[in-house]
């Protein structure tokens, strides 16, 4: 398969799994309010992890299908995203000691996604 086709497939799969994730997430949030404490409620609360794992599989598939150069670029992007997110969370932990509220762990994923997307855009602009 050529490079463009792989990218089109990847974007389609990622968008589909992302939509599925949001669908399951909002459904589980709506359902759990009407449920009693117990194993079923926990299962409903954890159900969005399935489409999340699907997203992981989509990214992993893309990673193994692209050529060496793109794989290196992806690795660089992830490495820098990890470093920037690590630094941001570490700095925020000091703000917590001053009285800032403890945030949910769910806030980290959007931060990671935003940093990764920004790095991708900056890389594209710098590479022109």
């Amino acid at each position, binding site marked *: 398969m050529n490079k463009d086709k792989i990218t089109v497939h990847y974007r389609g799969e990622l968008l589909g799994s992302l939509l599925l994730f949001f669908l399951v997430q909002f459904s589980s949030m709506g359902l759990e309010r009407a449920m009693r404490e117990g194993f079923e409620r926990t299962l409903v609360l954890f159900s969005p992890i399935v489409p999340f794992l699907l997203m992981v599989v989509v990214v992993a598939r893309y990673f193994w299908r692209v050529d060496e150069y793109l794989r*290196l670029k992806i690795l660089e992007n992830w490495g820098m995203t990890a470093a920037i997110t690590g630094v941001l*969370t570490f700095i*925020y932990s000091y703000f917590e000691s001053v009285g800032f509220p403890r945030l949910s762990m*769910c806030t980290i994923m959007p931060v990671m996604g935003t940093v990764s997307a920004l790095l991708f855009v900056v890389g594209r602009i710098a590479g022109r």
Partner: protein
Amino acid sequence: MHERKIWDRYLVGILGSLCLFTLALATFIKMDRHMPEGIVRTMILVSPLAALVPFLWAVVRQVRRDEVMHQRKIWFRYLAEMSAAFLLYAVVLTISLEVGPPMPKGILKTLVLVSPTLPFLLIVWAVVRQSRRMDEYLRLILLESIAMAFGITAGWVVTYGFMENAGYPRLSMFNVWMVMMSAWAVIAIVRTIASR
């Protein structure tokens, strides 16, 4: 000495000192608040840092065994930069924790309590400088390890986010950093053992 023996000794040194560090840290967290001021409390406070000394010694010994002069040079430079940045971080953290809490609320208190982030950025800078000094292959290995640690952290963060919905308490953001670094260390150790 036989190469395998050298590696075994290195791994025992690294893992032993990490266990010692964890033990000293756990003792410090458990006992710190219950102990009166005095020499014993100070010793418990300093013990996690003291446990890092055998770790550093094991790494220095391993670097000294490297036959390539250039490699030896860049690793020693990295160790020196990292140790200096870490020491500065420990000093600034101690001062900010001593001076900050009794201060009246305001911008100055916030600045004093947030000040340890500056030497922390020096630690990150030391890692970035080292990655620039490395050759292509080692840089790729480093990138792969960080990317894997990133994946593990992302997975943990999402899982814990769902656990929060089920009633688990909100944790400090410091935990994200701890998980990321622990994952990186475990990956590095596993890859070192696997590459033998």
